[in-house]
């Protein structure tokens, strides 16, 4: 399927249903693996569903199509979010998805372009994705291609200095096809971001670096869709969507709970989560 040729776009309600299915996949695959990162997958999935559902140009039958849009998941530990959408879009099958983190699986612990069709970046070490996306955007411009480059980072991730090197360079090079989404879920590995090292007013910081920025509720599908459309149509400078989200969104006992940054649900928690995600 070339999503660019889709006859009709998904409605907001369809996008919500897509995100809900993905949430179920996320919790199930992490439970099956006995390890993984549910919190940041669940905070990011509404934006990812909206991107794949309506925006990204790709071809499932030709995952390496040169002119596809790129989705660079820089917060690579939230790989279950990516695998859930790749399953929904048809890049991988259920068996692939449920073999997450198992030896030989195409679904490696952190997203890896070498292992999985439809993955555009090998993540796992934070702070690198925006630089990679900038490289993709500069190459696209040299090729006179209108492909869009989307990069998703976490808020703890932007503590990495390299992120700001890339933010400065993207403005200098007027990388208008570069679109950033910051998943501002306020929690990182050890604790809340404000405890570890607060990143502050991310929108103001990016604005001061020359970016066009919008802030949204990252779980409000109307706002998400509108912001993605805005970002995709603005091509004279790099754009950022700072999405305020809830870590673990959709599963009550994971919400805003730092301990579910990188912990799998047990059998009972799986059952409870599935009950809530129905």
């Amino acid at each position, binding site marked *: 399927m070339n999503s660019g040729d889709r006859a009709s776009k998904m409605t907001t309600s369809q996008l919500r249903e897509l995100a809900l299915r993905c949430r179920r996949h996320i919790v199930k695959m992490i439970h099956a693996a006995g390890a993984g990162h549910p919190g940041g997958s669940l905070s990011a999935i509404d934006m990812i569903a909206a991107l794949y559902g309506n925006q990204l140009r790709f071809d499932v039958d030709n995952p390496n199509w040169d002119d596809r849009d790129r989705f660079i998941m820089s917060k690579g530990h939230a790989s279950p979010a990516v695998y859930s959408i790749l399953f929904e879009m048809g890049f991988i099958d259920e068996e692939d998805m449920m073999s997450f983190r198992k030896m030989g699986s195409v679904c490696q612990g952190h997203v890896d372009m070498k292992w999985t069709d439809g993955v555009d970046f090998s993540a*796992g070490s934070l702070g690198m994705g925006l*630089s*990679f996306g900038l*490289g993709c955007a500069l*190459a696209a411009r040299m090729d006179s291609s209108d492909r869009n480059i989307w990069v998703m980072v976490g808020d703890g991730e932007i503590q990495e200095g390299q992120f700001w090197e890339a933010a400065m360079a993207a403005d200098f090079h007027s990388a208008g096809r570069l679109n950033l989404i910051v998943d501002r879920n306020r929690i990182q590995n050890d604790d809340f971001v404000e405890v570890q090292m607060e990143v502050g007013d991310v929108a103001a910081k990016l604005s001061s670096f020359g970016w066009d920025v919008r802030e949204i509720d990252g779980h409000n599908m109307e706002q998400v869709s509108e912001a993605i459309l805005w970002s995709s149509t603005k091509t004279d400078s790099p754009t950022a969507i700072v999405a305020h989200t809830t870590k673990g969104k959709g599963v009550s006992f994971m919400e805003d709970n730092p301990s579910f940054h990188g912990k799998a649900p047990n059998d009972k928690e799986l059952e409870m989560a599935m009950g809530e995600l129905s």
Partner: protein
Amino acid sequence: MSAPSTGGASRDGYGSALLRLAEDPRVVVLEADLGKSTKSCLFREANPERTVSLGIAEQNMVLVAAGMSSSGKIPFASTFAIFTERGFEQVRNGVARPGLVVHLCGSHGGIHTGTDGSSAQSIEDLALYRTIPGMTVIHPCDDLSAEELTIQLLHHDRPSYTRTARNKTPRMYDEVSCKDLKIGKGSRLREGSDIAIIACGVMVSEAVKAAEVLSSKGIEATVVDMHTIKPLDTELIDDLVETCGGIVTAEDHSVIGGLGSAVAEHVSYTGGVPIRMVGVSDRFGESGEPEELMELMGITHGDIISSCESILS
């Protein structure tokens, strides 16, 4: 092989090669402020639209190069050898792990860099990049060989690191003989069956000088320019083990992890001959003229000679 003549620095050869590579529209050049030093400025002047300036930000440069590689470009990114190390984990995780073909060049490698002092003298870069799976590591000895080997990178399907040197060294090749060089194949500059000297970079001319002195003493040495540290030409080393009474390695690099280590690791499997390493012992450099520093660090042709003699005695 022609007689050594005054030539250029290997960084000059890198710059000349980039200019020639510009014929291929996929080639792009990335700089982190030091283009005038690495000589990528030659490409920039001729092809500004395919040159990306990223300021003093090496980590970003490495991943921008990776992104461009994933989009069909052939990126050549350069800065000082020491500053490439700031992006080491980026090379490991962002370039080599996904198998993206990015060609990284670190100029001003080794203590030969001179008066800038120890902060600028990378003596560990070859060791670092050698540890990364799938990475090719090259260290040419003069401008002509640097140019030829860089040109060959256009069709090289692995990520690579090339170390060039700041200062001029005697030419070991001429315009014709450099065409025989091949990435991954050591180059025999002199034949002798008493001992083998395997050198890289600025130490190749020192090795030749050492062999000439040894010859006057009745000791005949084979001299190999091992311009590719990885993949190592193990076939050639096996042959030297068969035919020579010992091996001396010579590099402007720490004896920990570089050419000497690579040779010793291989010979440890096959066994056979004693090995001595001429290189920087486990210490940092300091400011000084290249010749003074080579003397201080014990990496002159005299040190090669005494290592050879110690094996043969």
